[in-house]
């Protein structure tokens, strides 16, 4: 039995999940005998569903350059990693990601997939570059899920659970980099994974994987003042491999690593 009268406000509270379970059951029971009110509740719910149908696609859209630069413009103060890097970063982000010089003249064999990219990458690529750079610069182990070994299954599980899909972890041991660990980071395109690798001399390379493809499948080279990057896409993800800039040799080493990753995990 309904011990209180049901007012219109409670019908809305029902739609919005604001009723306690006992009252909700009462209201629902009452609605089953009051088709007119039940019809209104259905219409209110249809309004909500309609708004989602109209606007949810926005959630998957790329961010405007203005929003990206708003994010980047305040980045510098969170980079207490030494003057040199901070300065390079300021340059890098002064025009969103415009400081990245996208290069393509890689002296490699004719069968290589390295391409010259356009001077200004599309927004998706800029997001990838910005996020990968940010993740690489953090480069601390506090929130890094550390790998016990190169074939540590817990890393795969950790990343896969948070990415919501089975993720493959690349191996770069043959190139002298061992897997240190992984972290999952928020990203406008959904959870993104970062894999951190380390050489014997402590130098680090990080791979950033966004769960959103950003365009071209070619491996493209870009460099900022202090960082060097290769990026590419497959059907479902975009990838960026980042390291500190170490001259031409460093770039060629990074390319080898990029190709290794590409052949191992790109779909």
């Amino acid at each position, binding site marked *: 039995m309904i011990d209180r009268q049901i007012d219109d406000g409670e019908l809305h509270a029902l739609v*919005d999940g604001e009723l306690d379970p006992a009252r909700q059951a009462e209201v629902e029971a009452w609605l089953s005998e009051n088709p007119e009110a039940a019809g209104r509740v259905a219409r*209110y719910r249809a*309004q909500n569903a309609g708004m989602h149908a*109209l606007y949810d696609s926005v*959630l998957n*859209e790329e961010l405007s350059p203005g929003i990206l630069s708003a994010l980047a413009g305040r980045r510098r103060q*969170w980079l207490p990693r030494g003057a040199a890097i901070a300065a390079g970063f300021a340059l890098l982000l002064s025009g969103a990601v415009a400081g990245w010089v996208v290069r393509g003249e890689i002296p490699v064999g004719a069968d290589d997939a390295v391409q010259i990219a356009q001077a200004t990458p599309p927004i998706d690529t800029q997001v990838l570059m910005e996020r990968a750079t940010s993740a690489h610069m*953090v480069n601390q182990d*506090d929130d890094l899920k550390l790998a016990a070994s190169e074939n540590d299954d817990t890393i795969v599980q950790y990343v896969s659970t948070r990415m919501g899909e089975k993720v493959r972890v690349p191996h770069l041991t043959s190139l002298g980099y061992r897997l240190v660990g992984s972290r999952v980071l928020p*990203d406008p395109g959904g959870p993104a994974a970062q894999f951190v690798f380390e050489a014997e001399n402590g130098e680090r390379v990080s791979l950033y994987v966004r769960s959103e493809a950003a365009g071209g499948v070619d491996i493209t080279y870009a460099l900022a003042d202090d960082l060097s990057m290769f990026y590419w896409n497959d059907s479902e993800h975009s990838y960026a491999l980042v390291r500190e800039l170490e001259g031409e040799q460093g770039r060629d080493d990074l390319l080898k690593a990029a190709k290794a990753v590409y052949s191992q995990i790109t779909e």
Partner: protein
Amino acid sequence: MVWNVSTDNKRELLIAEIPRLRRYAIALLRDRVSADDLVQDVVLRALDRLHLWRDGTNMRTWLFTIMHNLHANDMRRLSRTADNQPLDAAALSHGTPPEQEAAVELSQLSNAIAGLPMAQRQVLLLVGLEGFSYADAAKALDVPVGTVMSRLSRTREELRRTLDGENVSQIRRVQ
């Protein structure tokens, strides 16, 4: 290396909310350029004040409060877009084209929302689209919870009548 972890974590929380800020702003302002401008302002303001955001409180509510304040202050932006032509519903939805009937209903809904006064649109979108609790919506809009509830009831009922062809809303809205 000194790294302010907590600041960075706050920043990541903020970034994760941007898509929702955009969805709300686009639905509210019905103009993508204005919406992105507003979200950009929110991001700048929020980053400036990130140290004021307290851990454990709701980042989303905090950001929407900032957005509401900025929007309320920006009467110029408001007056420029309040009566703009409604967004084309078909242009908004991506992917597979919906059934003809559904498309008509969506564009009717879109037009009906466009006809609502700003204060009603805010409550409807915050609760109905963004899933805010009444309490959080009240906080974000800086009005009493009772106002959220009465505004929401009135707005939904007006929408329903408009969409069902019971065109009483025209009369009710003139106050």
